[in-house]
């Protein structure tokens, strides 16, 4: 046991002393998180803006509801010009009891939204003016789903991807460099199994994955990005660990074939990058064409992503872990077995 501890400590020291690895493990995925997080910050949160001329109870009600974003103009012509120029979809002009909506024919969807919302408020005000209680009531509640704010799907996606990259590269490069530097032959001459030595490296990868999780989520929760975690976020921890094991196994397979560190890097990239794109790291897969969604199901990263999304932001419970966990464990077993078959001690 102390042997395992010493080995793990050695692996850990080797890891944190390698600046390049640190960069690709932490800063590189964080760069994506920050850049995409900033670029897409307002997408989805986007409300329709309209021009408003004049004021009154309906305008106040609209402003309070937050259903539309109101841009006040004092001059009617200027407001209408904005609509004509296509800058705004509609202008609301209030003259006492009279409300006029001037809308752009070119943006029918938005105009319809505006008309519907304004109409609703006018009807409500009319009804209230009659003093009658409403015969039908209607309540609405937001369901967080396909319409997640970008940071809500970016964080789980980039976290899964970051963990996958660091586990695949960690395993592949360790194996290749040990083989090239004859460390594997030395290990072979010691009364330990290669598996136990690799396990200590796996332990380091698992620790790294947890630190990645804490860092990425912590940064995404800054007010600037505004990630909101669901109550069952801690279910992401077992998922991070299982993902590490699965992708570590994949890295061992890459490391078994690659002869040089360069080849291992290239091969790992070829495996990980397309998988990342198709698994919803940078955009939600539900927005992709159906055939692509089907294809993406063959990637373990897709399932890890789904699981992460479910437990981190969609508020699903432990049952959401079943499918991703089963797939990750199965993947780790199959790929790990193949890797152990093609494993080579020396060049």
């Amino acid at each position, binding site marked *: 046991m102390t042997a395992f501890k010493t080995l793990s400590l050695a692996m850990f020291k080797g890891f944190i002393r390698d600046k390049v690895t640190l960069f690709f493990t932490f800063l590189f995925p964080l760069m994506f998180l920050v850049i995409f997080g900033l670029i897409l910050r307002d997408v989805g949160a986007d409300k329709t803006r309209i021009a408003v001329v004049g004021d009154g109870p309906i305008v106040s009600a609209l402003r309070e509801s937050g259903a539309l974003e109101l841009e006040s103009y004092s001059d009617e012509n200027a407001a209408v010009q904005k609509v004509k120029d296509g800058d705004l979809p509609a202008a609301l002009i209030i003259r006492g009891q009279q409300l006029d909506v001037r809308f752009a024919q070119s943006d029918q969807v938005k105009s319809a939204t505006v008309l519907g919302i304004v109409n609703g408020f006018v009807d409500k005000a009319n009804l209230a003016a009659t003093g009658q209680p409403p015969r039908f009531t209607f309540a609405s509640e937001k369901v967080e789903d396909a319409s997640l704010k970008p940071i809500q799907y970016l964080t789980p996606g980039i976290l899964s991807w970051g963990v996958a990259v660091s586990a695949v590269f960690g395993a592949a490069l360790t194996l290749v460099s040990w083989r090239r530097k004859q460390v594997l032959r*030395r290990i072979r001459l010691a009364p330990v199994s290669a598996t136990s030595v690799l396990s200590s490296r796996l332990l380091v990868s698992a620790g790294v994955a947890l630190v990645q999780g804490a860092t990425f989520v912590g940064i995404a929760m800054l007010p600037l990005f505004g990630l909101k975690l669901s109550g069952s976020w801690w279910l992401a921890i077992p998922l991070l660990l299982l993902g590490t094991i699965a992708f570590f196994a994949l890295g061992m397979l890459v490391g078994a074939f690659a002869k040089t560190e360069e080849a291992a890097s290239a091969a790992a990239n070829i495996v990980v990058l397309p998988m990342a794109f198709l698994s919803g790291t940078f955009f939600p897969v539900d927005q992709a064409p159906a055939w692509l969604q089907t294809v993406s199901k063959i990637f373990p990263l897709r399932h890890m992503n789904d699981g992460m999304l479910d437990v981190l932001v969609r508020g699903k419970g432990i049952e959401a872990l079943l499918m991703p966990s089963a797939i990750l464990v199965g993947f780790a077993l199959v790929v790990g077995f193949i890797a152990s078959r093609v494993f080579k001690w020396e060049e």
Partner: protein
Amino acid sequence: MTEERSAVVVRDVRKSYGELKAVDGVSFTVAEGEFFGILGPNGAGKTTTLEIIEGLRKPDSGEVRLLGESPWPRNVKLLPRIGVQLQASSFFEKLTAKEQLQTFGALYGVSKGTAADMLELVGLADKANEQENKLSGGQRQRLSIACALVHDPDIVFLDEPTAALDPQARRNLWDVLRAIQERGKTIVYTTHYIDEAEILCDRVAIMDEGRILALDTPAVLVRGLDAPTHVTLQKGVLSIVDASALDGVEEAHENEVSLTLSTRRPAPVLSALAERGALDGLQVRTATLEDVFLNLTGREYRA
């Protein structure tokens, strides 16, 4: 010596890489506590032989017994009892000298303190916290040897431990190797350096092209050669004709700076030279393993 007391027994071992016979019928035994050297030029098959004994390679044919057991396939029972320094040094990435030792020690269940103590033995205590890739070639070599010794093995295999060392470092390392032997360890080592093998080894196997050409103590090998002693004098102290006429001189050569006499009876030659007061620039060179190699292969020895 009986085979039971032998640390290593190698019987007619062969190993080919395609057409190339890297090891071509090698047999020898190494007694417990012996310092055994394998001497030979590049490509002689030294590393291959050593790695077959260590159990890193499978021989095509022949038999190897290491401490009475077969090292192939990987024999975990044997591993704690042997220490190996590979020809290419093998270290973990980014670890300091001390951490390398502790990590290799951990593979054998050796405590951290014991591992760190090994640095003293090879004179690297002041480099304990230096990362391995910042050590000089010689220091790395010594660290590599320390890593082979960290678990206190009974047999130590060292593949060219003194390669790439300056003369001072080489001598320091000789002291280390002698100290290991004094602790009762068996040492099997390879080298290019004839003089070193002559000084260090109890017995030497001279190897070339996959075969052992001769195997014995250095003294016996040289004596068995019946090679002449060369006496060199400054040119001009004696004419070549007079020199050839001296009792015991077999041959005399002269070049721009010196006169060299070959003799198998150096005593009368030296006293005759002393009588004539012709001892200026005197050098006496007896036969060495180098001559043994030349004699065996017909080739100059080039390390």
